[in-house]
């Protein structure tokens, strides 16, 4: 499928650039870790309380780290009019959307893969066997974040106060994802598996499906020079 090929091509370009310049991934990783440190100092936890707060704190860290990645997302294209070149080319803009979303998704997943175990260590949490399930839920939530985030990042490209505006418009839209992911994670940590949080998971999946579809359909109109 042509869309897929184009997407992979654009994705490969971004990955190569990232490998060479290494600006986004390292910054995001260090920022995520820094936030964990700050949380530890800010909240004076009784050991049993930490497990309750863990999903929320993790997700706060991921949200802010992810926003950092989003503001960088189209940075490469802004230099040297690369974006104009991309748009003038016969590439399907839906492919650009998918590629950018995947790129940010990959960056965030890599960061989460490291930060989650780190969180477990720093906060002395139990239940290491639950991490795969938790990571799966985080994955779905991150997809939702990246989909909407990529659209909002593209849309605010030329706005003033962009670094403030992006989270301002993005976060309220993210509320279903935030609620669903944290509830799922809480249930997993409390009960060992998803149990009655299944409806939350379905909501999360629905969110992802709806906005990936919408994104592909309208990204055409979203991004202009």
């Amino acid at each position, binding site marked *: 499928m042509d869309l897929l090929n184009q997407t992979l091509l654009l994705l490969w370009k971004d990955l190569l650039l990232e490998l060479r310049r290494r600006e986004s991934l390292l910054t995001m990783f260090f920022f995520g870790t820094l936030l964990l440190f700050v949380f530890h100092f800010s909240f004076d936890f009784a050991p049993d309380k930490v497990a309750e707060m863990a999903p929320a704190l993790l997700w706060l860290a991921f949200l802010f780290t992810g926003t950092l990645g989003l503001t960088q997302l189209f940075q490469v294209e802004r230099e040297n009019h690369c974006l104009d070149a991309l748009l003038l080319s016969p590439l399907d803009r839906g492919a650009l959307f998918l590629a950018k979303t995947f790129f940010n998704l990959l960056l965030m997943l890599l960061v989460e893969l490291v930060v989650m175990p780190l969180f477990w260590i720093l906060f002395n949490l139990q239940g290491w066997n639950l991490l795969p399930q938790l990571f799966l839920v985080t994955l779905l939530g991150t997809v939702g974040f990246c989909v909407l985030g990529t*659209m909002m990042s593209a*849309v*605010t490209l*030329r706005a003033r106060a962009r670094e403030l505006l992006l989270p301002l418009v993005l976060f309220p839209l993210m*509320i279903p994802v935030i*609620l669903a992911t944290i509830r799922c994670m809480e249930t997993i940590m409390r009960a060992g598996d998803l149990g009655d949080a299944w409806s939350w998971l379905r909501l999360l999946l629905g969110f992802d499906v709806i906005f990936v579809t*919408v994104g592909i359909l*309208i990204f055409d*109109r979203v991004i202009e020079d």
Partner: protein
Amino acid sequence: MPVTQPLRRRRGILGALALIAIAVGLYWGLIVAPPDAYQGEVQRIMYLHLPSILAAYLSYFLVFIGSCMYLWKRERRDDILAHSAAEIGVLFTALTIIEGSIWGRPTWGVWWAWDARLTLTAILLLIYTGYLMLRSLIDDENRASSAAAVLGIIGFLDIPLIHMSVYWWRTLHQPPSILQPNKAPWENIAWPLLIPLLINIVAFLLLLFYLLSLRYRLGEMRDEIRMHRLEHSL
């Protein structure tokens, strides 16, 4: 093209109708209607609250339609509609929150509660205030319109998802309480209370359309001014 007299007259009639409906609604809601058996006089705030939120939702629906049409056809009138409806929607949402809060004080004892309805309204306010800020922070008019249209579409599509998530959140973990903040005060409404409610809903909708027509015309004029300036700077 100058606005024709018939249009201005129609708007005037709309305004007059709105005023009459508002007056009747006020009279009926405050004087004719009996106080609620359980909530007392405070229940009369519902004659503002429900019409306000309905007006807000209708406004946001218009933002959605305008945004879709604008992204599709790129006609100025759709963008102006979306912008106008968003501004008025924010007005009614802010009012809804204020009314809900004031109603909540004697009912629940607090000025704010994170119950489903108030929370949802607050989120709506955040989304569409963000819409207005987005527009004002992008200097290029065309980009601003496209950007806003995207947010107008995504924001509206998100609303049902936000509804579900907030309701589940508030009802699954809320300990059973005597006051039951999640119980809508207009459920099981009695007939003498329904009439003023309906009148006020009509009044608010008329008001909405009147304000919208004014704001829309303002948007058209601003567009024309912008066109003039562009032409003459060349």
